[in-house]
Structures are given as structure tokens and as C-alpha cells.
């Protein structure tokens, strides 16, 4: 015998009880807690990037600048204000709408087993459709960003030009990288959906991807407001 016997466990609470899955303290899936922890950590990452952008706002000793034109002292060449708010508003709208599609995709996976009578049921219940919509909107956002970056470089702003260039490209580039990771993640889910069909038992996997996607979306709202809208 071991020296000490602890009180008998509650049979249903044992690690391999009748309920199938593993026992957890909160009854939540471990993956959900982990993704929230990860998101908390990511908040500090973006907080640091955004703070640096704000600290360096207006400190660049040469242009181009985000919101006002700049005349190069030597050549007299005029650089217009570099941010294109209408275009970025469009890309922001696309990203926001992708979160809407993501919610529908998750709901479709969760409700896979429900009978679908009408065309509307079939459309709303198609996880493939909504995952495709989310992915394509993510790709569209990245396309907007690629367009924006190349336009800026053509206009004379690179990551090396000035403090604004360094902090702007790093901040938005990090966000773009997060969107790209999210798009890969969603495409992977889509591949599984085509291979064997996502089932309600996969809902947690879709759910954590969705949480990540919404987080990346929320961060963009902050960036769009602080970098683009506030002068």
C-alpha cells in the first residue's frame, strides 16, 4: 500500500469517466483557455507596437508624413500626405465583414446535424461557404495591404525612410502577418471540411480559430483608429 489513501474520487469526475472526454475543472475545453491566454499575451505585443508608433508620431525629422504633405528641402519635391483613408476604410470594412462570416461559419459547424429544409437553411448551414467567404475576405484585406505598401514605397516611403516608416510598416506588417496566419488556419479548416466534413465535435477547433480571427479584427479597429483616423 502507499502510505496515504486520499478520499475516494467522484466516479464521474475521474479522468476517464463515462462522459468520454477528459475531466476539466471548469468543464471548458483546455484549448479555449489556452487561446484566451494567448490572446492576452498578444494584447501586450500589439500594445508595445502601437505605443511605439504613437511615441514616434511627429518625431520623424524628414518625410513623407502620414497626414500632411512634406517638401524635400534640397530638391523642393513635394510629397503628399501618404495615408489613403478611403482605400483603407474599404479594407477595414472587408475585414469587419469577415468576422461576420466567421460567426456564421462557426454556427454552421455547431448546427451541422440540424435538418435543413429551406434554401436559407442550406445557405446558412454551409460551413464551407462561410469559411470560404471568411478566407477570401482575409485574402482581400491582405491584397489591400499589399497594394497600400507598394503604393507607399512608390511614393518614397520605405521601412528605412524615417521613424514613421519604420514604426508604420512594422506595426501594420505584424498585423498583416497575423491575418496571414489566420487565413492559413482557416484554409486548413476548410481542407478538413472538404476531406471529411467538419462535425459539431470539431466546433472547438473552429471556435478557437474564430476567437483568433476576431481578435485580429479587433486589433485592426484599434490600429485603424489610432494610425489612420486620428491626425
Amino acid at each position, binding site marked *: 500500500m502507499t*502510505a*496515504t489513501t486520499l478520499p475516494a474520487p467522484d466516479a464521474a469526475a475521474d479522468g476517464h469517466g463515462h462522459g468520454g472526454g477528459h475531466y476539466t475543472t*471548469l468543464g471548458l475545453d483546455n484549448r479555449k483557455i489556452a487561446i484566451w491566454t494567448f490572446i492576452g499575451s498578444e494584447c501586450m505585443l500589439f500594445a*508595445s507596437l502601437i505605443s511605439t508608433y504613437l511615441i514616434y508620431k511627429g518625431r520623424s525629422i524628414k518625410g513623407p508624413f502620414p497626414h500632411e504633405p512634406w517638401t524635400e528641402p534640397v530638391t523642393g519635391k513635394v510629397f503628399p500626405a501618404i495615408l489613403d483613408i478611403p482605400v483603407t476604410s474599404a479594407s477595414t470594412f472587408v475585414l469587419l465583414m469577415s468576422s461576420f462570416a466567421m460567426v456564421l461559419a462557426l454556427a454552421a459547424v455547431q448546427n451541422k446535424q440540424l435538418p435543413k429544409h429551406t434554401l436559407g437553411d442550406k445557405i446558412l448551414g454551409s460551413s464551407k461557404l462561410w469559411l470560404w467567404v471568411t478566407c477570401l475576405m482575409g485574402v482581400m484585406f491582405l491584397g489591400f495591404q499589399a497594394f497600400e505598401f507598394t503604393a507607399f514605397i512608390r511614393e518614397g516611403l520605405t521601412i528605412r525612410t524615417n521613424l514613421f516608416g519604420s514604426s508604420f510598416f512594422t506595426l501594420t506588417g505584424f498585423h498583416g502577418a497575423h491575418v496571414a496566419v489566420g487565413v492559413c488556419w482557416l484554409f486548413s479548416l476548410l481542407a478538413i471540411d472538404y476531406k471529411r466534413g467538419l462535425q459539431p465535435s470539431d466546433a472547438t477547433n473552429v471556435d478557437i480559430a474564430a476567437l483568433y480571427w476576431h481578435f485580429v479584427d479587433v486589433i485592426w479597429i484599434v490600429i485603424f483608429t489610432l494610425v489612420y483616423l486620428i491626425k
Partner: protein
Amino acid sequence: MATIAAAPPYTTAASEYSNTGLWSWLTTVDHKRIGALYLVTSLIFFVIGGLEAFLIRAQLAVPNGQVLSADMYNQLFTMHGTTMVFLAIMPLSAAFFNYLIPLQIGARDVAFPRLNAFSYWIYLLGGIFITVPIFFAVAPDGGWFGYAPLSTRQYSPQINMDFWVLGLQILGISSLAASFNFITTIINMRAPGMHLMRMPIFTWMSFVVQFLVALAFPVITVALVFLQFDRFFGTNFYAIGAGADPLLWQHLFWVFGHPEVYILILPAFGLVSEVLPTFSRKPLFGYPVMVYSGILIGFLGFGVWAHHMFSVGMGPIADAVFALTTMLIAIPTGVKIFNWLATMWDGQLRFTVAMKFAVALVGMFTIGGISGVMHSSPPADLQQTDTYFIVAHFHYVLFGGSMFGLFAGLYYYFPKFSGRFMSEKLGEWHFWLSLIGMNLTFFPMHFAGLLGMPRRTYQYDAGQGIELFNLLSTIGTLVLMLGTLFGLINLWKSWKSGERASSNPWGAPTIEWAIPSPPPEHNFDELPNITSRYPLWDLKGTVIAKPTTVEEEAGFVQKTAKQLHIPMPNPSILPLVTAAGVLFMFSGMLFTDSNIKLAIGIMITGAVWWIGALYTWLMTPLEDAH
């Protein structure tokens, strides 16, 4: 007492997977074996960091020392700090997180066993990456806090700081992955009845530490990304000529760096809070206050960073605010000291080596804490900053605090890890030589510092009244090394042939002592039902449990997980393969300046490698269908 030749305390039927051989270690996902890997690896790095310290002290033993070149000296003090903080103390704490957290909360493993293995492999590979350059005299040389712009390409043009920037990025991945894992484990893997306020205090302090890691490491990640971009891509984050703020790095670094201080000390506090009650035969005094003060230290730890920067001229308001928060954070720390004293008060004290290290922590940390709170006053700090006084202060808290606490934990938990006691006789040598050596090394530094000896100085002239203090410090280092040698010999001999230990050899109160030593792979045959804070003391009917003996437990046969139908995660090589790919990708960055095509080639190969391994990993179920 049983002799060395006595039968093991229990036998176990053959396990499903081989537990010996290199392959079993490379593929293990068992938190206990990963803990052992962390323990051994961090002690090797601790020895390397100690030898670096010895070379520094050899150079400073006499005025105008000639042992090292100035360049080598810079590399050594940089690597000594970096090694001790990131490769020795943090992972030694991680060894205890891994081994103890699942046992203390009544879980069969951590939440994500393969992610846990991944954290270890990243740490090992990152540690090698950042350590190897010292053997080729191209090690990082910008100080362990790598102040930019000093560490930018303009002022550190060589490859040295590239290793540091990339190495710390790699190590950050390990700590962050581990923090997500442990937070999830502690929140969601507690056994029935293990309410938060019944959790063992080590798990509580570890819980706080994981939040500090999760929230502080992203900040240094960003600081390092900026530095990396500045060095490799010519951005302007730390380029003063382009209008950059020369304090940006310092702020970002210390927003990470001060929580890091608590990341280093709180695990040791937790271990000592386990050791003192057992050897005082009394419950921990003021358990809730200990928990709350730990949480408060965690919160306040994020609000004191600029006290590292009083000398840069932040102005009276910033100086006053950070002075106040720094004085405030001394309060919860002092509360802990008093609670430990009250725990020992009127107890039946047993001075084992573990207890001696724990008591020594209380004393030594108090000295370091008092010299620390002296720096909270900006005018005093202006005299002390960048002198050996600071060096004395943080070695008292890091060696006398963190390391003594971790040693106490090692002597206390070694019987649980291995089923064998560590030798008390060798342990006495280890303890007394460490205590004497530590004080002999670091106490004279207070005087040298107040007499004006700057830290990181390569040579000093005779006739300034600091020769004796420096010579004493160097002699102390030798004593300290001898003590550590005794500790390592003790560890090796005890592992091989130590006296057999029972499941609860100290008569300890928490549930990790209710299972055999060493524990079976599934930890608990049945998940325990926790009814109090100190189950093993409360269960016995009497308040305090007696230690168990090997004889009582002879003949007990431990069933395997398979016999008990407990699903266990399968071993996997994929965490190691993924970690190696990550390292390969980062190492490509080193060639950015010399050969951009090679650099891109390596980085793309590394990325494809680890992403491929990661997908394979995610597509492989953790355990067989059941």
C-alpha cells in the same frame, strides 16, 4: 533506516513504452521526464555561467588584472548575466513547474504535453545557440540588458549581438509557450475539490509567474524585433540621428525586465513556502495573505520598471511615481518574510539541508531586499546606480534568494523525483560553503560599490581602497564554486545510489506526497478528491502526519496506466523536429549581411521545415482512440 541496498519502495509492471534509451528522452511528453530534462540542462548552464563569473572575478582579483582582454571581459559579463537569468534560473524554476504543478493540483499531465516538450527543446536549442559563440570569442558583448543604441549595428557592428538578439527571441518562444500551457493547466486541470484557495502555495506562485511571463515577454519580443530590424534591415527605431528616442529600448526592456525579476524570485518563494511548514510541523502562517501578496507583487511588478532608469533624467514627477511604487512593492515582499518567520515560530524545527537553504533564503533575501529598497529613493540611487553596490544587491536576491530557494526545493523534492534521498552529509558541505562563499563574494561588493567602483569595469587602479574588497570577492567565488561542486556531486551520487525514500519521507502535507516516489507515469491511479489545504495532515485524524518509511511500503506493486485503463499521451518526436526547424529558420538571419541569398534560403527551408512538422503534429492525435 533502510540501507542503500534495500529493495525499492515499490515495483511497477512493465510500461507500455520504453523508459530508457536516448529515443525515449527525445520523444517524451511526460511532464516529469521533461522536468528532469529541464533540471539537468539548467544545471549545466548554471555551471557554464558560474565559470564565466569565475573568469570575471579572476580578472578583477588584483588591480590592473591581465587575465582577460577587454573584449573577452565584455563577452563574459554579458554571457554570465544572460546565462544565469535565461538559461539557469528560469529553466531551473521551469523544472519545478513541470514536475510539481500537475502533481500538486492532482492532474495526470499538463494541458498540452507535446507543447510542453516543444518548450523544452526550444529552450535547449536556443540555449546552445546563444552559448556556443563564447567558445569562439564572438559571444554577445553588450551587457545582459543590451541597451540600444549601443547594441545597434552602428556601435556593435560584429556578429556578437546578432546571437543575443536572435537567441533571446528563440528563448522567448519557449517561455511563452510554457506560460500558456501552465496557465491552462492550473485553471482547468485541478482535481475535484482543489479550489483556488486550496492550491499549494508553490502552484500559486507559479500561477502568478506564468501570467508575468505571458504579459512581459511580448514586450521584450517587440523590443528585440525592433533591434533585429534595425540591425538587419536598417530601420530607425534606435537610430538617434533619425530622431529616435534613446530611451525607447530602456523603457521596453524594463517593462519586461522588472516583471522578469519576479519571474525569477516567486518560484523560489513558492518552494520555500512548501519547505518551511513541513520542517516546522506547522501549517504556513497566513496562507491567504501569502497568496494575495504574491498576486500583488505580480501586479505592482509591472509598475516599477523605470526605477532602473532614475539616472537618465526622467524628471521629478516620473522619478517620484516610480520611487513610490518601488517602495510599495517592498510591502508584500516584507509580508512574506514575516509570514515565514511566523511559520517557524514555535514550530518543531528540523534542520535538514532543505530547511537550511530555506531559512538562508529568508535571511539573505532580506539583506538583498533592504539594499534593494534603498535604490527606490532616486537621490540614493544616483549614487548607487551602475556601481558594484547594485551588483551586490541583485546577487543577494538572485543567489541568496532564487538559487537558495531552488536548492531548498531540490533537496526537498529530490526524494519525490527519484525515490532516493540526497545525501545530508554532502548537502551540509554544499550549504555551508555556498552560504559562506556567497557572503564572502557579494558582501564586500557593497563597500566597493559605495566607494565608487563602477560595475562592468575591466580593470581598476590600485590605491582607491577597493583592492581588499575585490580580492575577498574573488576568494569567495572559489568557495562558492567548491560548494556548488559538492552540490553537483551530491546530486550525481544520490541519483545513482542515494538512500531509498518512501512516498512521504518528510511527513509533508500536500497531495504530491500521497503517491509513490518516484510517481508512476499517470501520477494518480484515481484523481483525488481534495477536501482541504493540507490533505495529508488533515486526513490522519491528527493534525500532523508522520513521515512514512520504506519498510511500510515494501511489497506494494504500482499498476501501470494501461492496467488501470488510463489513456496516456503517446511519445512524439515532432516537438523536437518543430523546435529544430524554428532554430534553423532563426539561424538563417545571421547571414543577412554576409550572404543574403544563403540567409533567405535557410530561413525559407527552416520555415517549411517547422510548419510542415507543426501540421504533422496537429494532425497526429495526442493519444490512441479510446
